[in-house]
């Protein structure tokens, strides 16, 4: 794909990824967030963290299926936006729910499984965001970087569990998210197994030039 198109598409992805938070900000300043605005902000930023995490995780399988190698160049961007929404979500909790009461926050993380899961999900995303630059890959070495970035799987699982555990009764949404996540992780497992069988005896698959692009929070 032409560089021009990639740049244009990146602009589109930026706009798309920023639209939920812009929409929230617009609603907040226009009294459109309903009766419980802080709850609305918490829910919305949480949902978008998960959506973007799942989209990030969908990029590699999609690339494998479609052979559109340029897709990988959007993985870091979407992954970093997942982290961005995760930070907003965490901030609304720390600020508007706990008002930075450290004692209460620590108690909450320790006592409430869904908070523990949510914190875990964010903590696991943090090093991935930190090492999302090309320089980090060089510094860590491709292999180690890739192993580190497998943390995204754990983070996504913790995120979905967090959502599942906090829902009062209607589990439809967490169930859909869990199904998608299982599908995305299942694809990788099956893909690995097939690859292992095909490459018997072990032949190292040569790296394609597209894989040089560092990905934000996903090792693929």
């Amino acid at each position, binding site marked *: 794909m032409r560089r021009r198109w990639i740049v244009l598409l990146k602009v589109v992805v930026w706009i798309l990824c920023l639209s939920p938070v812009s929409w929230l*900000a617009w609603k907040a*300043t226009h*009294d459109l967030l309903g*009766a*419980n605005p802080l709850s609305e902000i918490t829910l919305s930023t949480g949902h978008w963290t998960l959506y973007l995490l799942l989209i990030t995780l969908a990029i590699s399988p999609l690339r494998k299926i479609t052979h559109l190698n340029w897709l990988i160049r959007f993985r870091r961007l979407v992954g970093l936006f997942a982290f961005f929404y995760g930070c907003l979500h965490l901030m609304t909790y720390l600020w508007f729910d706990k008002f930075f009461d450290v004692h209460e926050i620590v108690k909450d993380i320790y006592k409430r499984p869904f908070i523990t899961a949510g914190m875990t999900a964010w903590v696991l995303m943090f090093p991935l965001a930190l090492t999302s630059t090309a320089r980090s890959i060089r510094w860590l070495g491709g292999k180690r970087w890739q192993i580190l970035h497998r943390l995204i799987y754990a983070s996504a699982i913790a995120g979905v569990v967090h959502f599942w*555990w906090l829902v009062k009764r209607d589990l439809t949404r967490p169930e859909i998210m869990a199904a998608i996540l299982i599908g995305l992780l299942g694809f990788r497992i099956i893909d690995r197994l097939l690859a292992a069988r095909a490459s018997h005896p072990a032949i190292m698959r040569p790296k394609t030039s597209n894989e040089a692009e560092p990905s934000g929070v996903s090792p693929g």
Partner: protein
Amino acid sequence: MLIKKASDIPSSEITPKSIYMNRRSFLSGAAAFAAGMTMLGCEMVKPSEVVHANTKLTTVKSQFSTTEPETPFKDITNYNNFYEFSTDKYGPADLARNFRSRPWKVKVGGAVAQKKTYEIDDLMKLAPLEERIYRLRCVEGWSMVIPWVGFSLSNLINQMQPTSKAKYVKFTTLMDMTQFPGQRSQVLDWPYTEGLRMDEAMHPLTLLTFGLYGETLPNQDGAPVRIVVPWKYGFKSIKSIVSIDFVGSEPATAWNTAAPNEYGFYSNVNPNVDHPRWSQATERRIGEFFKRKTLIFNGYGDQVASMYNGMDLKKYF
């Protein structure tokens, strides 16, 4: 017991609804959040509001009313947990638009001298309607102050003369999938049921409720008749009641059946007994930025705590 002072001013006129329509305190809080975001005008667009043409009710004031600022009508009628319509809190306002709350009958039976079926309009005339401004604390951690209209459930109970076998009162919501689309999903065991111990049901605070803000109940708030038990979590205050039965043992209740470890039969508001998944120590009053401390029995301890003397409230949560 009750000091009833006649008043010919409908409650809705005491505080003009239009004033409450304007969100005030949240905006100051939102300003903090919006630091860095553009603050445009605050009065530009309002969300689509569902307003029903409700009948005005004449009420007398009640000594049980709180003087705290009332939650705006808009919030009381657009932020509803009413799973018969939807599990989305913003869903019922719209989905309840065509709900038929009249004609409506309430069957009162079980251990009583004589069973009786009331037409809703007759039931409303059983005692003078009072305005009762109560705090409502949802189990989810938010609260409102609502000017209900109704009278003590004890008026009905006394009229029905329950026999000595009556130890509990069981309430049942209408079962009608055509009107309640939520009843098509298995999210709860329909119809919704609730229950109170006899002394709780007889307590003067327990309100047989027909209206709010001086008008008949909006559909999404449990029209045409509901119970309001202000010292218990909101889900105990069952809506759109079609039958009331006096029974000998603790009745099965909807949320207790759905998750017995999370929602007890008593479900008294108690900041010291956490929900298994979240704390009940604080709450967000709708319209306020900072959270406030939750009060034991939702602040009605002076009136109701004696009913639970000697009971382990952690066990009987």
